[in-house]
């Protein structure tokens, strides 16, 4: 699922496209936000150096894929129930690339190996093996409806444009403005 040719950009010695990746849990409504977001936006007119991909698979497979792509930047989009914000709240943060503790990575990797798709697993495993470039941004949304089915809750549906605007803003940043 590649949007446009995977042109190259260069930033701080790392060559590769800007990767917009969605991580979602199929058929679990808001929890599938990452996947569905990617499907909605992959056809937009993205700059040539931007790749839009569904990364809804186990963490170590995402690591493989990111190593193959070798992106200069990564923008991850997903839904995570942190239960500290109201449904539909959008959180954007610069990922701290400090590797997590060994035990945490082992625990998460063992669960990922069993087929579990989980944004936090991906963040931990890919960070541990230094797969993410500096300036990796995570945009996550708080779910309102985690039941089986298609479509989003009104709160999450109402935040789609906000998430898209954030992604576009990140993509548009010149290398000098990319946070590290």
């Amino acid at each position, binding site marked *: 699922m590649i949007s446009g040719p995977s042109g190259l950009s260069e930033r701080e010695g790392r060559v590769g496209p800007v990767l917009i990746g969605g991580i979602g849990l199929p058929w*679990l409504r808001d929890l599938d936000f990452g996947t569905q977001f990617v499907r909605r936006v992959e056809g937009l007119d993205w700059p040539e150096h931007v790749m839009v991909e569904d990364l809804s698979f186990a963490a170590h497979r995402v690591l*493989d894929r990111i190593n193959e792509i070798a992106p200069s930047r990564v923008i991850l989009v997903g839904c995570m129930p942190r239960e500290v914000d109201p449904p539909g709240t959008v959180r954007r943060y610069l990922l701290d690339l400090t590797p997590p503790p060994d035990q945490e990575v082992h625990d998460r990797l063992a669960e990922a190996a069993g087929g579990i798709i989980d944004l936090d697993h991906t963040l931990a495993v890919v960070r541990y093996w230094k797969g993410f470039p500096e300036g990796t941004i995570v945009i996550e949304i708080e779910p309102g409806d985690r039941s089986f089915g298609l479509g989003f809750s009104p709160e999450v549906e109402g935040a789609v444009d906000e998430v898209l605007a954030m992604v576009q803003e990140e993509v548009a940043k010149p290398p000098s403005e990319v946070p590290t």
Partner: protein
Amino acid sequence: MCFKNLPIEFDDAGKARLKEGVKDPYAFNPVELKSYARPADGPGAKLGAPPKLRDWNIDPVTRVAGSLAVHTVLDLENKVAVDAHSIASLFRGYEIILEGRDPRDAIDISSRACGVCGGVHATVSALAIEMTFGICPPPLGVEVRNLGEVGEYFYDRPLHLGLLAGPDYSTSLVSVTNPELVTLAEKTLCRHGDIHGYRTIKDIMDALNPLTGRIYLEALEWTRVGRVMCMIMFGKYPHPSTIVPGGMSTTISVSSFNEFYTQLGKIFDFCKVITRLWDDLMDFFLEANPEYEQVGARPTNIAQTGVFDNSEVYDATYANINEWGNARWNVPGMVIEGKLVTTNLTDINVGFEEFIEHSFYDDWTKGSQPRFKTDPLGNPLSPHHPWNKRTLPRPTGKNFKEKYTWDTAPRWDRQSIETGAYGSVWVTALAGQTVDNPFIESTGDGMRMVMPRHELPEDELYWKVPRTLNAMERNRARAYAMANSAAVGMNIMLKALEYWRRGETAVSTPFKVPKDERLGVGFWEASRGWLVHHMHIDKGKILNYQITTPSTLNAAPRDPFGTPGPYEEAVVGTPILESVRDEDIKGIDILRAIRSFDPCMPCTTHIDTGLGTIVREVNSCGCTLE
């Protein structure tokens, strides 16, 4: 005669029928379950009361699909597990989701039952649909499907041995539970060090250390090879979109086979190494302390449904199901008390029942007659058979004497049965009926496999059926099952190339969705064994769809006759062999027993000793649950 509990006999033509004079052939009176009590005689009986028992709860942390918990009772005076309950603690409901849908939807929807085994669910669903629709793929379509499956197996099995079961035998863990074994391992030279490159057993144990060990890390890389193989044939993994009723929608060319073979060659070398490595490691433990033979031991009752169709024989019909089932590269079969009692899929089908006396479901047999009293060939069916089953969730009871799990209790001939990658080589070895080929020979008591030359020279492997079905032998046989699948893959690839050479390049066949009432069933195997989808359609819609998976069998609770499920049986009687104080016991032998099955539920399992929480993991993919 393969049935000893069900009142089924066979006429002179080999057709099954109910024995005459049995008034209610499938009736039973559920026995009342009792809590564990130390026996009045036998080992430990004379020890002072009250016995030094400790409850151990293996407690789940779940994410999105399913989870496993195991409650155990340890007798610390006798150093043995004396009671166990296996608990699937989430309801999944794919059967309910599929009711009323277009039958073709079953492929994509059931594929999502599992994050590892999506391809096998899609495939077995396609098989069920093919039987239901009355269609059959062209020969190359069958072979391409087979090849994709070979790839899928190499996603799961290296992961299990390297990441899930392997760390239980690592230096980092064994040094805590049995430091004397680490010392011994340091002095013990590997018998096959010249092949796998590890000089001492401790070198192997070091390589199994989580995150840093070479075997652990390489397992991740091997799954990548498996995934590439799978994607060459299936287009996408883990949830292929190219598996369709009547074949494959993949675009295949000669380069597909060349690319596949490039990966398969690497797999041959991997199998030469991994089999010897697990031989050395398991032999070390069994020789260091023969009591390890009892870890995870249970009666040798194995159920396999067979996999890798012979494209010259497979016709997707129920009428010929025994013929094409027995022509599979890995044959179906039932091993009861170590003896292979049948390889016929009709026997496997009619002897299969699911019970819910200790599961969170209502009994669908009460107050109604079974929809089907026989299969399409006239063989008798139980009211508890999947074609007669209804999924009626009702989470009541919630104690070990009543109901304690979302898993059902599948039984064959009313006996507790397990399944696994190891079962596939076990059954095929006992069957002794391998198709004539240059790479595999089934000897009746073992299996000989030739791994062709790649970077390592050609090598011949031999796996002998072990005397005990236990944790160590499950792991060892899983390594050999990989070699078996690689050898099967080579045979299949040669066959596929032959079809290609002859110009028989079609991989799919057209079909229409029938509007009349029909039955179908898909028998296949996940990497972990048994995988069956039963289907009943009418007016172009699914009336009933029932999925039974490896972990439906393995994680089963007690049945109405009081017999524990396989995990439960394997845990009870497992000795506690840790050489530490009681308060420092980690329960590693219990976990080795459970993990040796390759449990398949998305869960993180914690052992609560009551003195603090020791975190260990059992991993899975979510296909246990309803």
